[in-house]
């Protein structure tokens, strides 16, 4: 017999198994006993577990992406059961990139991908990004967070400069700033007045949620 509890487990397991067909089957079954928001929450719990397993080297980037794709498909199915205004919207807009002068891309891309999988709308500006572009994109897209990466001690100063530019623009208090990359630390984040620092990609997502008050 399908119960709320058994459905929650099935939804969770299907996401963790990054199996789109199973996710859709579980969603359709769950709709008989669960509300749309409950189903979305159960799928999101599965995605959190996928993030943890990625962090621990048990799942890899393609698996995270397949799971995210499956979750999107599942949410699309239940969206028709939600009131019209209740459609799933992005949690917030984040602008990410590697600062000017620094061509490292991979770590920043993983953070952008995990933020996207967690439900954020991400504008990943790439690498070697002129500092002005972070601010302009943030203003244009109503961004609530800027995430800047730097892989070199010689380029991490750009993170500090961008924070100063946000102050000059008068929007520092409207935008949370997170910094990351190999040489960045919590002490560096504190020193330059950033709001957050993540030890790795998984922690960056948790920190973003915390800073933006997203549960």
């Amino acid at each position, binding site marked *: 017999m399908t119960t709320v509890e058994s459905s929650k487990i099935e939804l969770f397991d299907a996401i963790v198994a990054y199996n789109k067909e199973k996710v859709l089957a579980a969603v359709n079954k769950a709709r008989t006993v669960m509300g749309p928001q409950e189903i979305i929450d159960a799928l999101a719990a599965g995605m959190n577990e996928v993030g943890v397993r990625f962090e621990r080297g048990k799942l890899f980037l*393609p*698996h995270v992406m397949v799971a995210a794709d499956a979750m999107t498909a599942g949410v699309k199915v239940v969206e028709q059961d939600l009131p019209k205004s209740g459609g799933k919207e992005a949690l917030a807009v984040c602008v990410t990139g590697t600062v000017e002068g620094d*061509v490292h891309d991979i770590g920043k891309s*993983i953070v952008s991908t995990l933020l996207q999988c967690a439900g954020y709308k991400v504008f990943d500006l790439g690498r070697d990004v002129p500092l002005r572009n972070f601010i302009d994109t943030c203003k244009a897209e109503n961004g609530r967070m800027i995430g800047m990466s730097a892989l070199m001690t*010689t380029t991490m100063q750009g993170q500090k400069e961008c924070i100063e530019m946000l102050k000059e623009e008068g929007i520092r208090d409207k935008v949370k700033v997170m910094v990351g990359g190999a040489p960045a*630390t919590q002490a560096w984040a504190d020193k330059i007045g950033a709001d957050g620092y993540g*030890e790795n990609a998984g922690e960056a997502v948790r920190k973003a949620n915390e800073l933006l008050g997203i549960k």
Partner: protein
Amino acid sequence: MTEYALRRGDGQRLFLTKNQIRDDLQDGMNDACELGSVPALSSDELDKLAEILMTPGRMVGVETGMEVPVTHDIGTIRLDGDQGNSGVGIPSSRLVGMMFHERAMGADTMELGHIDYSFKPVKPVISNEMQAMEVVQQNMIVPILYGAMPNMGLYYTPDGPFENPGDLMKNFKIKEAQEMTEKSAEHLTRDMVWIMQRMMKAGADGVNFDTTGAAGDGDLYATLHAVEALRKQFPKMYIETGMAGEMVLGMHGELEYNGQLLAGIWPHQQAKLLAKAGSNIFGPVVNTNTSKSSPWNLGRAVTFVKAAVKESPIPCHVNMGMGVGGIPMFETPTVDAVSHASKAMVEVAGVDGI
């Protein structure tokens, strides 16, 4: 209660009691055991680590008879470098930098490296590098390797011919992303072999593949194949392969070597694969957590490296420096942190070199 002056992973000063040190060592060790499924250290070994950390003095050394070989990667340009990094800005050539390390600082091997320090940018200046190798070999005695990073990211747009798998992934084009990784890896293997064939012709004693796996499992895949090809062609060359991080990131997720999935493997698993491919020396890396104490980081790093030493068929020369091996993430790590962590790696983890 007595407090000992230690460091946090970001270099900040910390004062901890003996019990706190012991607890943090235990917690760090547990983290390594859980993540890598590696054996725990014994209670005696944890006590020994605590004793090392509590040894007063900024500089400590290994016990007599336990000395190990040391080598340097950036040593070539450390004296000359002055870009706001750890270089000291003394105008000097690469040859002078290397000779200083050999004759004044006691380095047991050295490497010649290019300022860009990746294999790909060496291609257009290969003749310069060959000439530099010849000159260096005529002036020095210690084994000289040619060192560079595989750095597969340079093969992705906008730096290289293949579409960036990271961008493709974000658009859910997973198969296409994997295909780009495979193509880049093939290209990278070819370039590394081509460069080393020429450097060997110029008299190099071998190669140091530095920060292998920085671009994930494809980067390691390419390097393993390069090692295999070079070993076949040069049976006696030294091949040192150092890693970029403790775990191989699964950017592709399905690449295998010798039946072993490369994504998600830890130092003790990496060592066996590199030996199989033909490396002589394995350079394990354990990342430093900048929010944790030095006992936590050292307990964790020693646990991982001891397991690698135990399972590795080839000597392990552990990476010790900025943000690795239990040493804080600091541009020029403090001598107290470096010397205490290095002593622990030799005396407890049993590494063959640093």
